[in-house]
């Protein structure tokens, strides 16, 4: 097989696997926006918390990063509840700029606390569980685990959202807040739950990300993921967690596939062009389908 096709095949495969984690990473952002209409600009800081959780559990207690995911989820629930009841609850109907600044400030606060506690150094670990050798491409098993965990978590969330009592209550609030309130749904409680779950998913995705990239863990690592999550969220429909999950897949494929295609053009640095491609697609989508691929409410 020509080197280009080998590279394209490998990149698309890796892109799809990483895309699932990207999707999972963005579901929390979309859930929070869908329910509370709040854009969490501090998203990346919560991913950082998840990465540190996996790092410390592995290096201090030998807990594999995959098993760190439930711990991260619990920590995320706690952090989300704390942030919601101390700050967000008071700002729900405030102008958008207020909540934007509040989430930004909380993100910065988290980063600075992390720096204070754990220092500015890059951390990392190495959890090896073997590799899957396919023709022309090798895939580390930990990446496959991350893929499977992401898909499973998205499915659980989907079932809870569609069939669970509180999930249905949240959907009702997403459709009509006043109507839901009239039907006896505790709107504030559901807001708190949605926000906490949104943050918990984000923190858990930070742990899953370490299965792909177990190095370079540091307090300011989240910035680039915030940017990617926004692109993915818009791609899938800002208020649609499921759209966000599929958006993650598409983003992973575009990011990796575009790399191979741009690599064919002499004189181009394909890495920088992948960002160009991702944002170009985003602009086109905003122009022709601003509600995202799966629509505003998740199809």
């Amino acid at each position: 097989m020509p080197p280009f096709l080998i590279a394209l095949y490998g990149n698309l495969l890796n892109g799809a696997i990483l895309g699932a984690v990207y999707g999972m990473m963005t579901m929390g952002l979309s859930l929070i926006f869908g329910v509370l209409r709040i854009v969490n600009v501090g998203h990346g800081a919560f991913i950082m918390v998840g990465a540190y959780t996996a790092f410390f559990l592995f290096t201090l207690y030998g807990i594999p990063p995959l098993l760190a995911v439930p711990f991260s989820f619990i920590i995320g629930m706690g952090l989300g509840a704390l942030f919601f009841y101390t700050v967000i609850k008071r700002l729900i109907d405030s102008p958008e700029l207020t909540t934007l600044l509040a989430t930004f400030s909380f993100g910065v606060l988290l980063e600075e606390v992390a720096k204070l506690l754990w220092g500015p150094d890059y951390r990392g670990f190495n959890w090896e569980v073997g590799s899957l050798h396919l023709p022309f491409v090798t895939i580390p098993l930990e990446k496959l685990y991350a893929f499977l965990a992401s898909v499973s978590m998205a499915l659980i969330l989907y079932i809870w959202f569609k069939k669970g009592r509180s999930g249905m209550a949240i959907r009702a609030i997403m459709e009509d807040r006043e109507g839901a309130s009239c039907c006896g749904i505790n709107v504030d409680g559901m807001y708190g739950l949605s926000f906490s779950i949104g943050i918990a998913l984000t923190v858990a995705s930070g742990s899953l990300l370490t299965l792909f990239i177990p190095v370079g863990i540091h307090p300011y690592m989240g910035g680039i993921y915030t940017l990617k999550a926004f692109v993915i969220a818009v791609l899938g429909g800002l208020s649609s967690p499921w759209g966000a999950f599929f958006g993650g897949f598409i983003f992973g494929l575009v990011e990796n596939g575009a790399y191979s295609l741009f690599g064919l053009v002499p004189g181009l640095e394909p890495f920088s062009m992948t960002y160009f491609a991702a944002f170009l697609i985003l602009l086109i989508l905003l122009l022709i389908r601003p509600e995202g691929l799966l629509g505003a409410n998740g199809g």
Partner: protein
Amino acid sequence: MKIRVLLLSILLILPSIATAGEAILIGGPISLSGKYAKEGEQGFIGFKVAEKWVNEVYGGVRIGNRRVPIRYVYYDDESKKENVTSLVERLIKVDGVRFLLAPYSSGLTLAGAPVAEKYGALYMSHGGASDRIFEQGFRYVVQTIGPASSYQRSVVDMVKAIDPSARRVALLFEDSEFSRTVMMGVKGYLKEKGMKIVFERAYPRNVKDLTPVLTEMKARRPEILLGGGHFADGQLLAKQMGDLGVDVKAASILVAPTLPAFAKTLGKEANGFIAPAHWEKGVRFNRENSKGIGLGYFGPSQEWFIREFKKESGGLEPEYHAANAMASILAYVKAIELAGTTDVDRVRDAMDRLHFVPFYGEWKIDPETGKQVGHKMILIQWQKGRKEIVWPEEAQTARPCYPMASCPGR
């Protein structure tokens, strides 16, 4: 008549008052606070140890029949360019320093260079590796630290010495000025050595995933990888090479493998990785080896330097910044001795002829640009979880393991 004799005597004595009566002033701005405080501290202690050796052990700079002590003069530049320019001016005009030591980093070094040039004071770069500093046409700016363009050349030398048949090289660097300078520097050298670049890519700063570029690189089947940029991306590169089963005979990555955190994180996967370094504790440049390469040795032994550094710093381990600093002062001392005077222009001329070996490695500049051309980067390689010096041969603590797959402990 008596007055004439007295005046004549004063005239004869005056030049020596400027040197022997006082001391030869060597100094510069140094970053004792701000973002380069750590590197600055290393350099500062290196200078103090050098001052101690020259004055107390060596007995002062030999000028004719006299021995003249040196005095290190410094100000904290707070890692800021604007401070560097004013401090260099102050050192020259107020303190009368004619033998300047540039601050750490290429940016700060470049900031002070025009001021030194304007006043005709010698300006020694011990922490500014960028080739750009020496492409400005400065006459008085000289370099002790090896230039960025030379960083990966030792790897090519090592590979050619072990495996003359290796030809296919991949270049994979961070998209930054420093890394690009390194890459441009090695490209010409590879061609000179008859090697073929089969893959060449740059990746953005703060990259989080190198899978696409490594997948592409793997398909080109390179034998040698030269790459990296800073710590985080270098570590990611090494980690994902292992993940994707990228198998090369030698992989040399900038910066990351020189730090213990590299092996601490990657474990056995770190074994086999190479990195260029200016100096490492344990490097074997000494009187015996320098005879072997036909050059004169000058300065203290490495053991003396490490011992005194620890004493001066209260237990810190010396890093290459400190060794660079000490070598810079030794070069000034040797050049003044060779010139036989403290006249700046004559010392600068002497530097063109100066070629010696301190414990830091060879010192020789290019007369045209002042760029360091004698100092060869040493290569470190992780073997069985230990950082070994594998190149050049005269500095080795272990033989290089090649191909890297055969590396013990990998």
